[in-house]
C-alpha cells in the first residue's frame, strides 16, 4: 500500500472511473438518436454547454450569483461564530435563547425569499440577505454546541495558566469547537447554494437561477440541460473547495482521531 506502482494506480483509476464512464456512456448512446423534445442527445447538450459556458457572456451570468453567495455565506459564517461563542459559553444565555434559535432554524429558508423582498425589493441586497438568514442558523447552533462541549480539563488548565481574552479564544475555544463549527458550515453551504438559485428563480434579472428559468420558459431545452449541468458542477466544485479547506484547518483533528482509533 505504501508505494503506489503503475499497476495499482491503473487499478485504482479503473475503480474510480468505471461506473461514471459507464453511466455517461449509457446516457450518450441511449440519447444519441433521441427525437424526444425534453431529452435531447447528450452530444447536443454538451456542445451547448461548451458554447454557453465557455464564452465571455457566461461570466456575466455566473459571476453575480457566485458573488452574492460568497458575501452572504461568509457574513453568515462570521456572524454565526461571533454570536455562537458567547451563547455557548453562558448557560443562562443558552437557556434563554435556545428555543428561539431552534424555532428560527426550523423555518424552511426559502420562505425568506418572499419575506425579505418586502424589505429590500428584489435587488442584490435581498439575495445576499436571504443567504445570510438561511445560512446563519446551522453555524450558530453548531458553534453553541461546540463551545458547550469544550474539554473541561483543558478549560481548567487554560484558567490555571491565566490565559484569557483573545489568546483563550484563538488557542482554546475556537480550535476546540472547530469540528462542530465545520459541521455547521457544511450544512450551511448546501443551504446557501439552494437559496442562491431559489432567490434568482423567484425574482432576478441576472444570475444562473434566472438564466435557468428563462431557458425553461422559452423551451430552450439543450440550454436548460447545460444550465442544470453547470449548477451541478458548481455544487461539486464548491464542496471540493470546502473539503480542502476543512482538511487543511481540521487536519490536526482527523490525525488525532485516527491515532485514537488505532490505540
Amino acid at each position, binding site marked *: 500500500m505504501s508505494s503506489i506502482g503503475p499497476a495499482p494506480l491503473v487499478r485504482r483509476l479503473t475503480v474510480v472511473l468505471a461506473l461514471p464512464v459507464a453511466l455517461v456512456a449509457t446516457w450518450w448512446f441511449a440519447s444519441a438518436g433521441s427525437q424526444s423534445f425534453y431529452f435531447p442527445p447528450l452530444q447536443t447538450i454538451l456542445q451547448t454547454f461548451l458554447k454557453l459556458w465557455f464564452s465571455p457572456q457566461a461570466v456575466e451570468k455566473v459571476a453575480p450569483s457566485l458573488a452574492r453567495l460568497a458575501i452572504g455565506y461568509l457574513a453568515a459564517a462570521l456572524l454565526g461564530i461571533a454570536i455562537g461563542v458567547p451563547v455557548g459559553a453562558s448557560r443562562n444565555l443558552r437557556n434563554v435563547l*435556545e428555543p428561539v434559535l431552534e424555532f428560527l432554524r*426550523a423555518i*424552511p429558508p*426559502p*420562505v425568506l425569499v418572499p419575506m425579505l423582498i418586502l424589505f429590500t425589493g428584489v435587488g442584490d441586497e435581498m439575495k445576499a440577505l436571504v443567504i445570510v438568514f438561511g445560512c446563519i442558523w446551522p453555524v450558530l447552533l453548531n458553534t453553541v454546541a461546540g463551545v458547550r462541549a469544550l474539554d473541561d480539563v483543558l478549560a481548567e488548565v487554560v484558567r490555571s495558566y491565566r490565559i484569557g481574552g483573545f489568546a483563550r479564544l484563538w488557542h482554546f475555544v475556537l480550535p476546540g469547537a472547530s469540528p462542530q463549527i465545520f459541521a455547521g458550515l457544511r450544512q450551511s453551504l448546501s443551504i446557501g447554494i439552494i437559496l442562491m438559485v431559489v432567490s434568482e428563480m*423567484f425574482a432576478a434579472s441576472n444570475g444562473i437561477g434566472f438564466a435557468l428559468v428563462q431557458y425553461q420558459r422559452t423551451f430552450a431545452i439543450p440550454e436548460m440541460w447545460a444550465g442544470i449541468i453547470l449548477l451541478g458542477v458548481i455544487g461539486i466544485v464548491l464542496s471540493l473547495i470546502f473539503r480542502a479547506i476543512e482538511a487543511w484547518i481540521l487536519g490536526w483533528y482527523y490525525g488525532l482521531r485516527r491515532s485514537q482509533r488505532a490505540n
Partner: protein
Amino acid sequence: MPAEAAKKTAKLSARTQAWLQGLAGLAGFALVLEIVPRVGLVSPLYLPPFSAIVAALFEETTRGTFWAALGATMRAWAIGFVISVVAGAVIGIVIGSSPLLRTLTRSTIEFLRPIPSVALIPLAVLLFGSQLQSTLILVVYASFWQVLIQVLYGVQDVDPVARETARSYGLGPWAQIRYVTWPTTLPYLMTGVRLAAAVSLILAITSEVVIGSQGLGKEISDTQSGGAVAIMYAYVIVTGIIGVILNLGARALERRVLAWHPSMRLDTVEAGG
C-alpha cells in the same frame, strides 16, 4: 436517601429553571416583534405587530384553504420522506454489504451528492408542471443522499470480529443483515432519518414557493404578492412550527428506537449525573 432526594429536586428545579428561561426568551422575542413595528423601527407594512400576525393566524385556521394547504404540504413531505428513507436504507445496505459495490460506486455517489436538487426545478416543471411529482423529485433527490450516506457509514462501522463470528456460526446473508449489520447501522440510519425529515420539509416548501405547487409555500408567495402581509407571516410561523415538531418528533423516535443502544444509555447517565 435524603441526599439523593435533594439531588433529584435540585435537578428538577434546574430543569424547570431552563424551561422558564426558554419561555422568557420566546416571550421576549414576541415582545420585540410587537414593539419594533409599533415604534416605527420597521414599517408595519413590512412587519405587522406580533399580535396582528397571531390574530391573522387564528383567523386563517377557521378557513378551509389553510387546512388544505397544510395537508398538501404534509402529504408531499410524507411521501417524499418515506421514499427517501426506504430507498436510502435498502440501497445503502446492499451497496455497503459488498466491498466491490462500495468501491465502484464511491466516486459516483460523491459526485452526485453535492449537485443541488434545485437544479432539477426546470426539468421537473417541464415534465410535471406544478403537480405533486415535481415536488417529489426535488424532495427525494435532496433527502435520499442524506439517508444513503449515513447508512453507508453505518454498514462500514460493523465490527469485523462480529461479522466473522456470525459467519463462523453459519449465519446466512439474511441473518447476518438482521443480527449483525442492522443493529450497527440503525443509529446511523436514525441520524439520516432526522436529517431527511428536515431536508424534505425545506424542499417541499421550496417547490411550493418557486414552482407554485399546492401548499403552504404557495400561500406564502401568494399572500406576499397580494399584500396580505400579516397572513404571510402567519404562514411563515406555521412552517417554523412544523419544522420544530418534525425535529422533536425525529429526536423522540431516535430515542425510542435506540433505547437499547449504548450511545443512548451513555446519554441518560450523563444527563442524570
